[in-house]
C-alpha cells in the first residue's frame, strides 16, 4: 500500500516535471545563437533521453551481474534486468528519433553514418536482440542465465556510445556539459530547463521501470500458479 502511494507520487512528480520541461523548452527559453529556427529546443529532451538510456542499461547490467553471482542469485534481479532493458530500448529509440529530427534541421539529412549515431543504432539493435532472447521459451532459470550473459555482451557497446563524442570529431556536436572539466555550454534559463529535463526523465524512467517490474512479477506468479494447477491435475489423474 505504501509502495503504491510512493509510486503514484513519483508518477505525478514525473508528469509535472515533463509538462514543465515542455512548457519551458518550447515557450520560455531563448533561442541560441547559431541554431536555425529554434532547433536548440530539442536540447531539453534529446540529451535527457540519452542519459536515461545509459542509466537503464547500467541498471540492467548490474542486475544481470547480481543474477549471475551465485551468492546474490535471485529471480528479482532477472526481472529487474528485463524491465530496465525494455525501458532502455524505448528511450534509445526516442533518442534516435529526436536526434534524427535535430540532424534534419541542422545538417539537412535525417541520418548520417557518424560514429555516435552508428554505435547508438547498434546499441538499439543489441538490446532488441537481448529482449528477443528473453522471450525464447525454456526453463526459467536457463532463460534467466542466458539473458544475463546476453545483457553483459550488449553492454560492451555502452561505453563506446558514451565516449564517442569525445573520441571522434564528427558531425555530432560535443557534450553540452563536459563532465571531465565540469564546464557547461548552457547557462541561465536554458541550463535550469535542461536540468529539469534530466530530473523529469529520470523520474519517468524509475516509474516506468517499477511498473514493468511489477508486471513481470505478476506474470511469474501467474506462470507458477498455472504450473501448480497443471501438476495437481496430473496428480489427480494418476490417483484416479
Amino acid at each position, binding site marked *: 500500500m505504501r509502495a503504491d502511494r510512493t509510486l503514484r507520487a513519483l508518477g505525478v512528480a514525473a508528469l509535472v516535471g515533463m509538462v514543465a520541461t515542455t512548457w519551458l523548452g*518550447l515557450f520560455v527559453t531563448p533561442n541560441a545563437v547559431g541554431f536555425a*529556427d529554434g532547433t536548440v529546443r530539442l536540447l531539453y529532451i534529446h540529451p535527457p*533521453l540519452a542519459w536515461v538510456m545509459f542509466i537503464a542499461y547500467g541498471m540492467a547490467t548490474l542486475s544481470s551481474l547480481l543474477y549471475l553471482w551465485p551468492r546474490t542469485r535471485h529471480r528479482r534481479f532477472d526481472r529487474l534486468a528485463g524491465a530496465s532493458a525494455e525501458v532502455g530500448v524505448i528511450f534509445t529509440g*526516442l533518442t534516435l528519433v529526436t536526434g534524427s529530427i*535535430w540532424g534534419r534541421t541542422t545538417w539537412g539529412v535525417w541520418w548520417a553514418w557518424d560514429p555516435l549515431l552508428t554505435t547508438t543504432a547498434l546499441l538499439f539493435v543489441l538490446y532488441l536482440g537481448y529482449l528477443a532472447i528473453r522471450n525464447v521459451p525454456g526453463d526459467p532459470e536457463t532463460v534467466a542465465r542466458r539473458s544475463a550473459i546476453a545483457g553483459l555482451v550488449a553492454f560492451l557497446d555502452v561505453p563506446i556510445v558514451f565516449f564517442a563524442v569525445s573520441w571522434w570529431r564528427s558531425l555530432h556536436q560535443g557534450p553540452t556539459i563536459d563532465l571531465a572539466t565540469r564546464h557547461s555550454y548552457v547557462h541561465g534559463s536554458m541550463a535550469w530547463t535542461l536540468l529539469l529535463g534530466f530530473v523529469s526523465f529520470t523520474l519517468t524512467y524509475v516509474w*516506468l521501470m517499477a*511498473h514493468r517490474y511489477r508486471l513481470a512479477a*505478476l506474470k511469474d506468479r*501467474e506462470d507458477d*500458479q498455472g504450473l501448480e494447477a497443471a501438476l495437481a491435475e496430473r496428480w489427480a489423474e494418476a490417483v484416479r
Partner: protein
Amino acid sequence: MSGYIEAGYVIALGSLGSYALSLLRRERAARRGLPHPPRRAGTVPGSPAARDEPAEQP
C-alpha cells in the same frame, strides 16, 4: 519554429505516455487474471473473522 521541433516533443512524450498507459492496463489485466488468495473456511468477506478481529461477545 519549423514544426520539426514540436513533432519531436509530440513523438517523445506521446510514446512515453502510450507506453506508460499500456503498462498500467497490462498490470490491471494481470491482477484480474490471478486467483484471489484462499479465504478462511466459514468466513464472510468483511466479517470480524475474515479481518482477524475478535468477535463481539454476546
